[in-house]
C-alpha cells in the first residue's frame, strides 16, 4: 500500500497516467494501422483474400501508370492555386474587419461559417447542384443578361475551378488567425510611420506584411497540407470526371483500393502521397529563412 502511495505521489507517474489515454489511442488507431498499411503497400491485397507479399511491384507499377501522374498534377494544381487565393482573401477580409465596429463581431462569425460547414457532404452536394446546367450559377448569370447554359462540371477546363472556388470560399479559419496576428502588431509602429509621412500602402508593405510573415508561413503550411489531402469535395462533386481532369490522388487511391480491389496498390499510393507532402513541407521550411521575419516587434 505504501509503495503504491509513493508511486502515485511521484510527479512523473501523474504525467504518465494523464497522457496514457492519448498514447494508447495514438498507438492503436494511428501507429499500428500505419504499420499495417506500410506492409500492405508491399503486397497484393484485394480485401476478400489474405495479402500476398510481392515486394516493390506496386511501386514499379506506379511509375508506369499515367493516371497516377495525372492525379499528382491535378492535386498540385489544386493545392498551389487554391491555397494562395485562400490566404489572399483571408488577409484582405481580416484587414477589413480589423476595426472594432458594432457589426464586426457578426461579420467575423459570418465569414468563419463556411469553413466549418464547407467540409460537409451536404454543402458539397449543394455546390454540385449550383453549378449544374440549370443550377443557381447559370440562372444568376441569365438574370444579368449573360446567356449561359454552360455545364461547369462537364468541361475539363472549368471543372477543377468549381472545386477550387469551393476551397477558397472556406477562407474563414485562416482569416481568424490573420486577425489575431494583425491585432498584435503594435499601433506605435503605425503612428511612427505616419509621422514619417508614409501612406497606407507603404505602411502595409513595410510594416504589416513583414511582421505577418510568421503567420503567413504557418497558414501556408497548414493549408497546403490540407489542400493535398482534400477528398470529400472531389469525391462527391466530380469523382475525377471529366476525363480525370479533377482526379485528386486521394480519390484515385480510394478508387484503386475499394472499387478495383487493388488495395495493396492503394496503400502504396497513400505512402507515396505522404512522401510528396513531406517533401513539399520540407522545401517550404528550407526557404523559410529567406522571407520569414523571425525577430520580435
Amino acid at each position, binding site marked *: 500500500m505504501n509503495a503504491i*502511495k509513493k508511486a*502515485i*505521489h511521484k510527479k512523473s*507517474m*501523474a504525467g504518465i*497516467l*494523464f497522457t*496514457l*489515454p492519448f498514447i*494508447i489511442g495514438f498507438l492503436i488507431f494511428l501507429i499500428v494501422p500505419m504499420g499495417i498499411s506500410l506492409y500492405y503497400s508491399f503486397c*497484393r491485397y*484485394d*480485401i*476478400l*483474400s489474405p495479402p500476398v507479399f510481392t515486394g516493390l511491384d506496386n511501386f514499379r507499377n506506379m511509375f508506369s501508370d499515367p493516371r497516377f501522374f495525372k492525379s499528382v498534377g491535378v492535386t498540385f494544381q489544386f493545392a498551389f492555386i487554391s491555397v494562395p487565393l485562400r490566404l489572399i482573401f483571408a488577409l484582405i477580409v481580416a484587414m477589413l474587419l480589423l476595426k472594432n465596429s458594432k457589426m464586426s463581431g457578426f461579420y467575423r462569425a459570418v465569414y468563419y461559417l463556411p469553413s466549418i460547414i464547407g467540409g460537409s457532404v451536404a454543402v458539397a452536394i449543394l455546390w*454540385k*447542384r449550383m*453549378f*449544374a*446546367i*440549370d443550377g443557381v450559377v447559370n440562372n444568376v448569370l441569365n438574370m444579368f443578361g449573360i446567356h449561359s447554359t454552360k*455545364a461547369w*462540371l*462537364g*468541361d*475539363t477546363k472549368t*471543372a477543377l475551378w468549381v472545386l477550387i472556388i469551393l476551397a477558397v470560399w472556406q477562407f474563414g479559419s485562416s482569416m481568424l488567425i490573420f486577425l489575431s496576428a494583425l491585432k498584435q502588431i503594435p499601433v506605435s509602429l503605425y503612428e511612427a510611420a505616419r509621422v514619417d509621412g508614409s501612406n497606407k500602402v507603404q505602411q502595409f508593405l513595410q510594416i504589416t506584411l513583414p511582421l505577418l510573415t510568421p503567420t503567413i508561413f504557418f497558414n501556408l503550411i497548414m493549408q497546403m497540407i490540407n489542400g493535398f489531402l482534400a477528398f470529400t469535395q472531389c469525391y462527391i462533386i*466530380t*469523382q475525377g*470526371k*471529366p*476525363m*480525370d481532369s479533377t482526379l485528386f490522388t486521394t480519390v484515385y487511391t480510394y*478508387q484503386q483500393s*475499394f*472499387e*478495383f*480491389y*487493388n488495395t495493396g496498390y492503394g496503400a502504396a499510393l497513400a505512402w507515396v502521397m505522404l512522401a510528396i507532402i513531406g517533401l513539399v513541407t520540407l522545401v517550404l521550411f528550407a526557404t523559410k529563412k529567406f522571407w520569414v521575419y523571425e525577430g520580435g516587434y
Partner: protein
Amino acid sequence: MKQKLSVLLVAVLLASTLTACSKEAGKSGNESIDETSVSNDSADALQVTWWGSQTRNERTQAALDLFAEENNINDIDGQFSEWNDYWQKLATASAGHTLPDVVQMDYLYLDQYAKNDLLVDLTPYVNDGTLNLDNVDPNIVEGGKVDGKLYAVSVGTNVPALVYNKAITDAAEVEIKDNMTLEEFAEVSKIIYEKTGYKTNMAYGTSQEILQYMVRSVEGHVLFGENRLGIESADELRPFFEIYEKGVQEGWFLSPDVFAEQTAAAIEQDPLIYGSSPETLSWVSFIWSNQYVAICNAANEDAQLEITTWPAKDATLSNFLKPAMMFSVSVDAANPAMGAKVLDFWTNSTEANKILLGERGVPISETVADEIAGLLSEEEQKTIEFVNDVVKPNSSPVSPPYPEGSAEVSELINQLTEQICYGSMTAEEAAERLFTKGNQIMGQAAE
C-alpha cells in the same frame, strides 16, 4: 491530496475505457457458426443488406417486417445503398468480418465471395428442408452454385431491357421492334433527334454491360474470360465504340455534361425521365427488366415507357436470362439457419411475394408466380411477359460470373467511351487500347 485524487480519477477513466473496448472486441469474437439447428428463441436483430431504388427499398423492408412478425424476431435491420457504394461497403465489412447476416449478392461478385469463404454453403439447409427449392427451375438453382456448392439463391430472373419513351418515338413516327440490330438502333436514334430533338443515351457510364452483350453475338465469346478478354481481336470491339463516335458526330448522342452532374446508376436520375430540356433528355435507357417498374414509378405522367430488347447482331446468342437478386448468408451470421429461413421465405411465401410483386424479377417458384400473376400491375405484367415471351425463347445461357480484374476493365471501357464522347479519341484507337490494356489487366489480376 489533490494530485492523488486526480491521478486516481484518470486511472479509473482509463480502466473503464479499456474494458469497454475489450468488451466490443469480445462480442464479435464470440460469434460461432451454429450448424443445422434452428433455434426458436432468436430474438436478436437480423441484418439484411441490399441495393436498390426507392420502390425496391420500401417493398423489401415491408416484406422483411412480415418475416420478423411471423418468426418472432425483434427487428430486422435492413440496410440499403446504391449499387456502387454497396460493394465497397461489403468488401470492407468482409475484411473486418462484420458482414451482415443476409446479403444480396450478384452474379458479378458471387465467384469472388464464394471462393474466399465469405458465404455459407446452403446445401445442408436445402437437404434438411429449411430452404425449400422444390418448385424452382433447376437451371435457376444452378446459377447460384460455385464448384457444385450452393452459395446463393436467385429470387428473380433478370434480362437486359431497353426501355423507351413511346410518346417520343410516336412523335418521330418510328417503330421500335424487338431484337433490332445496332445499325437499326443508330438509324432510329438519328431520326428521333432530327424530328424531335431528343437525344440518345447508350448506357453511358455502365457501358461494359452492352459491350458484353454485343461480344456474345459471336458464338462462345465473352467479354471477361479467364485471365484475358474472351475475344479474338480488337475488331470485335470496334462496332461498339463506333456507335458512340457516330452519335457524337451526327449530334444525337447525349452530351456527357449531363452525366457529370449525376450520381451514377441511380435510376431516378436516368436521362430518360430526368432532365430539363430535350437536349438533356434521352428517348431510351439501357437497363434491366427488374428496373422497369422503378423507372415507371419515377417517371412523370406523360411518359409512356415501353420495353424491348437491347440491339445486337444476333439476338439469340446475345440475349440471356440472368439469375438476379441473389441472396446469400454470410459466414459472419450468428444464426445461419435463420438466414436460410429468410431465403426460403423469399422463395416460397406467397404473402411476401404479394408485397414484392415481382419488383425483383419474376418469382422463381412457379407456384408463387402463378398465384401472384393476377395481382400484378400493368407494368409488372409487362415485365413478366417480356421475360417469358420475348426473351426466354430467344436466348442463350448466361456467361460465367465476371472474374477478378473485371471492375478495372469496366472502368477503362467507361473512360474510353467518355473520351470518344468528348471527341479526344477515335473508335479505332479506343478498340485497340481496350484490347491491349484489357488483356493486360485481366492477365495481371489472375496471378
